[in-house]
């Protein structure tokens, strides 16, 4: 069964149709590419899946449950976590605290237990998890730096670390390689593969074609809010309509 199934989703902003009857399905364990020219509706798709937007029409099935119109925090609890296109971090908080917030779902406790220190076990668990994630993402050495003081590459890594801390089943990554040099991209691609092998299904929005083609087994192409093509990287690369959309857009 598909882990994520998007069924005939339409999203309109006033008169503008950002997504038009989009359907696709993602199998567990996949790294799926979602590509398309600027303004194609990729980020809107992510926000709709993650619960930041309610679709105008259509269903979004996650493990068989319809989560269309559910809230972002409830979706996070189900295991759907997104990252943001623009680097989004708690800028004035330390790297460690950033990831600790990501552990919210497992550290959650009541006011009184937090006050009386009765949440110690949970807190310790969250801190252990935070340390693990930082180690995993290669950020352990920077744990006490403020997020805003990190170089761009590390900020990107931190953003993914925050998402990972929430133990996603499905991770929606919005342009994680934007603005990176080839080395950083290579490094981040390695990390992405590592995340997938830890059992997380990934959907990746990215303009860097080399990265997308290198990482994804299967690619969905959006154009003007509609699915233009789907297939393996080789199929997509040789698809005339895709070539035209990209050339026409550029």
């Amino acid at each position, binding site marked *: 069964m598909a882990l994520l199934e998007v069924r005939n989703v339409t999203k309109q902003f006033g008169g503008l149709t950002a997504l038009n009857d989009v359907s696709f399905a993602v199998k567990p364990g996949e790294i799926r590419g979602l590509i398309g020219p600027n303004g194609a509706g990729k980020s809107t798709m992510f*926000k709709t899946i993650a619960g*930041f*937007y*309610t679709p105008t029409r259509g269903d979004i099935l996650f493990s068989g449950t319809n989560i269309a119109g559910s809230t*972002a925090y409830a979706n996070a609890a189900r295991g759907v976590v997104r990252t*943001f296109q623009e680097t989004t971090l708690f800028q004035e908080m330390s790297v460690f605290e950033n990831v600790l917030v990501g552990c919210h779902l497992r550290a959650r406790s009541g006011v009184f237990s937090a006050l009386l220190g009765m949440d110690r076990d949970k807190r310790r668990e969250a801190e252990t998890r935070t340390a693990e994630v930082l180690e995993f993402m290669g950020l352990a050495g920077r744990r006490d730096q403020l997020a805003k003081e990190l170089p761009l590459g590390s900020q990107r890594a931190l953003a993914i670390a925050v998402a990972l801390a929430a133990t996603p089943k499905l991770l929606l990554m919005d342009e994680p390689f934007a603005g990176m040099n080839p080395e950083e991209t290579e490094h981040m691609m390695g990390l992405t593969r590592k995340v997938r092998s830890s059992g997380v299904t990934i959907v990746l929005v990215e303009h860097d074609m080399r990265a997308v083609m290198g990482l994804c087994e299967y690619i969905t192409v959006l154009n003007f809010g509609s699915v233009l093509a789907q297939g393996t990287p080789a199929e997509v690369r040789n698809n005339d309509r895709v070539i035209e959309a990209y050339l026409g857009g550029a």
Partner: protein
Amino acid sequence: MEIILQTCVNALVASAFFALMAVGLVLIFGVMGIINFAHGELYMVGAYLVWYFYASLRWPFLVAVLAAFLIVTVIGLLMERTLFRPMRDNPLGGLINSIGLLFILQVLAVQVGGVGLMKNVPPAYRGSLELLPGVAIGNQRLVALVIAAALLVCIWYFLTRTKVGWALRAVAQDRDAAALQGINIDRISMLAMGLGAGMAGMAGALIAPLTRVEPYMGHGVIITAFIVTIVGGIGSLSGAVLAAVLYAFFHTFVTTYWNGTIATMLGLLIMLVVLIVKPTGIMGTRVSE
């Protein structure tokens, strides 16, 4: 029946004042993103100036009103330059500065106006115009109504029919886009602030003979202006005028037939309901980015 008609006439006069205050507030908020908490104090200063020029120095009433209007406009321009412009990227900072100014103006009013708080401004136009048997409008009110309405029409003409007015509305809609088009944001901000302040000053100047002039008279007015602004949809000039009329009628009738405190309380509740049902804040639309 006469009472109802008379109340309508009173409400009409109130509408004009509410609209003067609210439109100014909306202009300032629209262009600069700042809620000017000192707006009520600009109104108060306008009233004090009329008291000073007209009641003390015995200038002709209309000259005193004009002088008050101009002076408060200048105060507005100064506010923009000194208090708001440096806070352009921090609208909350602008709001805080306006609160600081509010206190300063209140104390100055107390000091300038003497320790006896209230000032009486004798009416310049006595007598009244009988519209129908039993329904009259005092001449002083009539003059105020006419001037306020004329000013509103001028502002409306200016905003919709002139190039500068168009630029001002463009800035209110999207400041960055307007800046890209080469509109001078600094100048437009000063313009908005000058106009907004001038209108508040004018409202205060016109009301001076009709009310008690005292340092804290701005407080009730700012609440009214907030209610009108929010109900009209903050950022919408025509909304502000419409809401001013509706709220003036509502408030005048509830006050006449029931109680003034209740009227304000209900107004605040209406405002809350509007904020809830049509919140333009981030939380309301769930567009969390």
